[in-house]
């Protein structure tokens, strides 16, 4: 039992260690020292947990879906831990709080929730894990006590999140009522042959709404821009990265396993009610609205928030296709997206702490003030925009080709892919707007060089390298998924 949950246990012990070290040994030290020591402890803990997860090759299903362990879940957990490590590394610049130990331990707590989420195939455990992660994320959003925006953002995020939890629970309760089980595969078994009755439709719709909030898909996205803008930047990075990976993994799992048989069809001129058309609508709306709204943003964090909404739309296409190829394409896309997002937010965090805000104008002349940082930003934004040979492009290719391949005879899902590709062409414009500030515009004459904290620079350089390597040699990642 303990061995099955070994990675989670290790991270839990790390939480205690971080808190303990911070409260005992580091009292009276400067915030920066406390952050750095805490970060090193967290990184060691996460690395150990990740190594544990990767080194074992077990397949186990504890108590009918309460804790499922197999190489894929282990790999996704490992990806989550890596994302956490990078989040911790970009957190150390923090001017947003003096509670270093608490901040880092809550990041780790959120990670534990996400890890359990990945391993769950039972509605109740899914809900508990999701709430553990979400509550930690609400706190992370509110961490800057001196900033009223952060409080506003956290409250908004909390209220929307609470509402979505209610929807989700309502949908789950209907599923339980119809099937008499909380296990995903058993639910599917008892729903077989039941047909599309109104109760099932309500269950589908409320589940989509619940997760729609979590992954910030239109029309349930309204919390996202405010939360991203108000939250301390590393928190925003973690909301956009780690929680996305786990959420999409579980969304894909719930819909493919529990709603098997109620797929319906979203193909052109071949609409059949079910969960795929519902997702198709949400995906299409997210892609269109996210991308078009991002164009007019002048705050880079808000721009990234809307781009996150748009990317959630692309990812939902992967959920919708629900083949094994599309699922691995989805996870490839989400993981590379998460790496890129942490990187982009990391750059924003540095610029924000050097210039005081994340306005687009503050990025002017960055290529002269911090050449390394600018190069990283170039890689991250081009990857988000889908320029080869970066990971974002190959992810899109995997995802879109898997979606079209689902109905290869009639190319019935091509319409969604055409929409996605068209919108991705739009997205290029606003990423280029940021890069134009960085590389083309000149900074004010007296603007000094920006000094990037070494740990952050290391994280960003590693992330940029990962984005390039995964773009050029995607087999390294996709063969595990």
């Amino acid at each position: 039992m303990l061995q099955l949950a070994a990675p989670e246990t290790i991270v839990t012990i790390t939480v205690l260690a971080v808190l303990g070290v911070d409260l005992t040994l580091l009292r009276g030290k400067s915030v920066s020292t406390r952050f750095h020591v805490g970060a090193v402890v967290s990184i060691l803990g996460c690395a150990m947990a990740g190594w544990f997860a990767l080194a074992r090759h077990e397949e186990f299903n504890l108590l009918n879906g309460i804790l499922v362990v197999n190489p894929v879940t282990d790999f996704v957990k490992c990806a989550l831990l890596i994302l956490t490590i990078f989040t911790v590394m970009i957190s150390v610049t923090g001017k947003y709080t003096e509670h270093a130990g608490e901040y880092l331990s809550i990041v780790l707590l959120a990670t534990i929730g996400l890890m359990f989420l990945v391993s769950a195939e039972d509605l109740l455990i899914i809900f508990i894990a999701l709430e553990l992660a979400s509550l930690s994320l609400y706190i992370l959003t509110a961490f800057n006590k001196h900033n009223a925006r952060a409080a506003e953002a956290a409250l908004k995020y909390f209220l929307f999140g609470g509402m979505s939890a209610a929807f989700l629970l309502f949908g789950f309760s209907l599923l339980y009522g119809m099937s008499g089980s909380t296990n995903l595969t058993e639910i599917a078994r008892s729903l077989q042959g039941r047909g599309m009755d109104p109760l099932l439709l309500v269950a589908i719709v409320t589940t989509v709404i619940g997760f729609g909030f979590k992954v910030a898909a239109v029309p349930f996205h309204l919390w996202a821009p405010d939360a991203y803008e108000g939250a301390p930047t590393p928190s925003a990075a973690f909301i956009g990265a780690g929680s996305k990976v786990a959420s999409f993994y579980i969304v894909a799992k719930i819909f493919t396993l529990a709603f098997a048989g109620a797929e319906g069809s979203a193909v052109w001129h071949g609409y059949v009610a079910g969960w795929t058309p519902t997702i198709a609508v949400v995906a299409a709306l997210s892609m269109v609205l996210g991308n078009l709204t991002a164009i007019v943003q002048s705050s880079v964090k808000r721009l990234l928030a809307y781009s996150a909404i748009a990317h959630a739309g692309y990812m939902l296409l992967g959920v919708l296709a629900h083949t094994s190829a599309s699922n691995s394409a989805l996870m490839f896309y989400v993981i590379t997206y998460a790496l890129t997002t942490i990187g982009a937010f990391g750059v924003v965090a540095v610029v924000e702490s050097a210039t005081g805000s994340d306005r687009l104008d503050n990025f002017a002349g960055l290529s002269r003030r911090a050449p390394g940082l600018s190069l990283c930003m170039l890689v991250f934004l081009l990857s988000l925009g889908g320029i080869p040979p970066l990971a974002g492009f190959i992810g899109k290719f995997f995802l879109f080709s898997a979606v079209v391949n689902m109905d290869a005879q009639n190319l019935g899902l091509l319409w969604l892919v055409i929409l996605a590709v068209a919108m991705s062409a739009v997205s290029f414009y606003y990423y280029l707007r940021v890069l134009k500030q960085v590389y083309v515009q000149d900074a004010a004459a007296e603007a000094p060089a920006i000094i990037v904290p070494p740990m952050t620079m290391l994280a960003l350089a590693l992330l940029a390298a990962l984005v390039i390597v995964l773009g050029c040699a995607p087999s390294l990642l996709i063969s595990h998924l």
Partner: protein
Amino acid sequence: MLAWTIYISFIGVLVLMLLPRDNAKAARAVALLTALAGCVVAIIGAMQQPHPGEVTTIVKTDWIPQIGATYYLAADGISLVLVVLTGLAAVTGILFSWNIEKRTKEFFAFYLALIGGVYGVFLSFDLLLLFVFYELTIIPKYFLIARWGSTRKEYGAMKLALYSFVGSHLVLIGMIAAWVVAKHQLGHASLDLMELSKVTFSASFQHWMFPLVFIGFAILAGMWPFHTWAPTGHVAAPTAGSMLLAGVVMKLGAYGCLRVAMGLFPEGMREWQWAVAALAVVGIVYGAGVALVQRDFKFVIGYSSVSHMGFVLLGLATLNTIGLDGAVLQMFSHGIIAGLLFGVVGRMVYDRTHTRDFNDLERMDVGKLLPFAGITFVIAGVASMGLPGFSGFVAELQVLMGAWAVFPKITMLAGVGIVVGVAYTLRAVQKAFYSDAKPDGHGGQHDHPLEPISVPERVGAVILIGASLVIGLFPTLLMNWIEPCFQSPLFERLLKGGSL
């Protein structure tokens, strides 16, 4: 060996990035050496190719087995012609940007990245790889123009980047759809162009996918009405930028049309043949007509590029061997001549006089101040008009002969374009260099003599004139490479017709 053209260029980029920030001389030297090495490798590699008609594999290894993508570089005669063109354009472009003082090393880093991408496109025989290189060229283009350009540079750069990106996304849709269909027909995933060319796509599929992919590429080839990025982009770009845009980037589009759109969807091409020909001729006439009334010297050349690229597209639309031969030769010829014209206008004239307005140039008597520029422009102009002895003549003649056999009426319209072409070139020569207008009182700001034409510029001009003359006098040099290609099985379905 040819693969090294790509690697050398990117190695050059890395070396430039490592250079100290303000050492312009070193940056220039590294850039020139890299481009020269690339050019030499391209020429020698091309000469060594034993059977230019066949597709000769250079490298082929697994890349992403999950989707059947391979790292597959190869070359046939068409690739050879364009690789050599890229080599020449790269070297002369650097010679014509010897005076870049502002952030020199970054300029040449972007420049070489662009060149590397272009080589890559011409040598890729895997669809995904080709696409990767194709998109790789967008970002350097954008920064070259936005950072080092002139007149409305940010607008022109953004317009070009967005047009390219939209075009490549049309291609992406077609690529994904073709991949899915091919996967089901072949039984395994593949993006290898040679394998894909054996797949029979259904008629209705080709009917929709051909225009999508063709337009996607043709946007970059400057096909009317998607050409509007070209004049603004060319005008906004720095001299080397416009030389590369007209010289090789537009060829990327035309090459994609031929290799991908027409190679994969021959039925679709036959169905849309008339539409392509019509748009091509509209481009020829429209481009020439608009060039005739421009006041900005560079706009004249910009629109003339649209007109000349119309000949390439018309040649492609003929679907007979002579027309296609002409189209490929015209790609080479226009690459050389347009590069030269932009070099004269942008570097020799604009950088010295700081104006491109004909009204100002008329008062300056540039022909006397810069005799070398005047003579070079006259030579480039007559080459561009299609005077026998220069490469343009052989190319356009073949295109017209090919077109005459298929659509004689449209071809006559293209003839009108040629006549207008003579007119706008003569007008530009006269207004810019040999005007009778007396210098009036306002021209006084140019009392001091203009800086004389420098050695790198002379060398660059001589290389380009030489290339155009050599190919004009001995077209067989290139025709020996191009002609057998269209006999190869790759284009069999396109030329023989009706294999569905």
